């Protein structure tokens, strides 16, 4: 999921950096006082989630949890995920500093998109139907992220279809796990703090 330094061509890296600056600016504007603690929490969970490796056969994949951040924060997920990515790059060496912009866009933009599309559904209906929508949002964010990663690689010269297929198929288990996790998180949030989604839908 994290593209490493040197894998992308310069125009893609620069384009990603510019896009991420725009996204962060939009996100900071959406980040009001009430939502800063939530953003911090989600940033921390994103940071740590990447260390949780889910063993699947001889291999393993790690969680991303960008869908959850997008559903709870909308545009404000952008700076939250950016901070998580920056610290992952510095502390764990995931990705790299030059490709930080591209990685931020690849991970945060699908989160924001999932948030904008799915969040209105989560506040509606019963808690269970909200949780199901939450699960769909969690899986959708990962699917879109794999798609964005494939686009980044394709615009740097890789063939699009095999790259997209490889990244997408490898992340199907992540999608399943994150759909369950996000679904349960939404279920819990709807029961414990129902205004989390109603209030954020207004902003």
């Amino acid at each position, binding site marked *: *999921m*994290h*593209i*490493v330094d*040197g*894998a*992308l061509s310069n125009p893609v890296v620069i384009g990603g950096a510019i896009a991420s600056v725009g996204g962060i600016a939009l996100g900071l504007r959406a*980040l*009001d*006082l009430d939502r*800063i*603690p939530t*953003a*911090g929490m989600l*940033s*921390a969970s994103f*940071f*740590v989630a*990447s*260390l949780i*490796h889910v063993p*699947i*056969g*001889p*291999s*393993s*994949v*790690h969680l991303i949890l960008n869908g959850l951040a997008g559903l709870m924060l909308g545009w404000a997920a952008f700076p939250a995920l950016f*901070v*998580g990515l920056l*610290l*992952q790059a510095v*502390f*764990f*060496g*995931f990705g790299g500093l030059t490709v930080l912009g591209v990685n931020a866009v690849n991970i945060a933009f699908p989160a924001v998109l999932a948030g904008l599309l799915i969040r209105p559904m989560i506040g509606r209906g019963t808690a269970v139907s909200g949780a199901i929508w939450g699960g769909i949002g969690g899986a959708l964010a990962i699917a879109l992220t794999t798609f964005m*990663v494939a686009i*980044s*690689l394709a615009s740097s010269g*890789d063939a699009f279809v*095999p*790259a997209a297929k*490889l*990244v997408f*198929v*490898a*992340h*199907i*288990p992540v999608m*399943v796990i994150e759909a369950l996790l996000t679904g349960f998180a939404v279920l819990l949030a709807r029961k414990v703090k129902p205004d989390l989604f109603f209030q954020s839908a207004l902003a």
Partner: protein
Amino acid sequence: MTRALILLALLCAPLPALAHKVIAGVFASGSAIEGEIGLSNGEMAAGVEVIVTGPDGTELGRALTDADGFFIFTPTQPVRHDFRANLGAGHVANVTMPAGEVAQILGVAAQTQSPAPTAPATGPATGAPVLASLSPAERQVIAQIVRDEMRPLRREIAAYRERNDLQTILGGLGYIAGLFGIGFYMAARRKLSS
């Protein structure tokens, strides 16, 4: 449903993990350059094409990794060798062997017009008196044995370097708490002053 999910998960089993750092190394191996490419979780890159280029970007040759992620490349020119392998999905391995080391492999002096700054200062004379009684063939055999013995160690060191301990994680969490604390402080101040 659960069965379908498990089946789905099993279907994905042989795919490479895409969430790891790329580890790559090259070292002298007799008259050839031996390299190793893999991911930080211990999985090696099998059947990956390694493209070797010189300092000016011209292609010097290609090599293919075996099942253990090893490849062998025989250099012909005493120049800096850049090894690049694309493992797919955004994972690219980049390693460089300086001209001095390549020259040692070839048994010729490094080209004086392009001195490699990173070339280690290993004079060929240091070990010579001790090894004087050994024939070149014997030396080759000893070098081969030492390399084989070193391989698991080298892998372990690479894995150790990739380990994320609790301290790092707590440090990162501390940074997040601090950053969002500062953000909270600034937002609160702005709200108070307005």
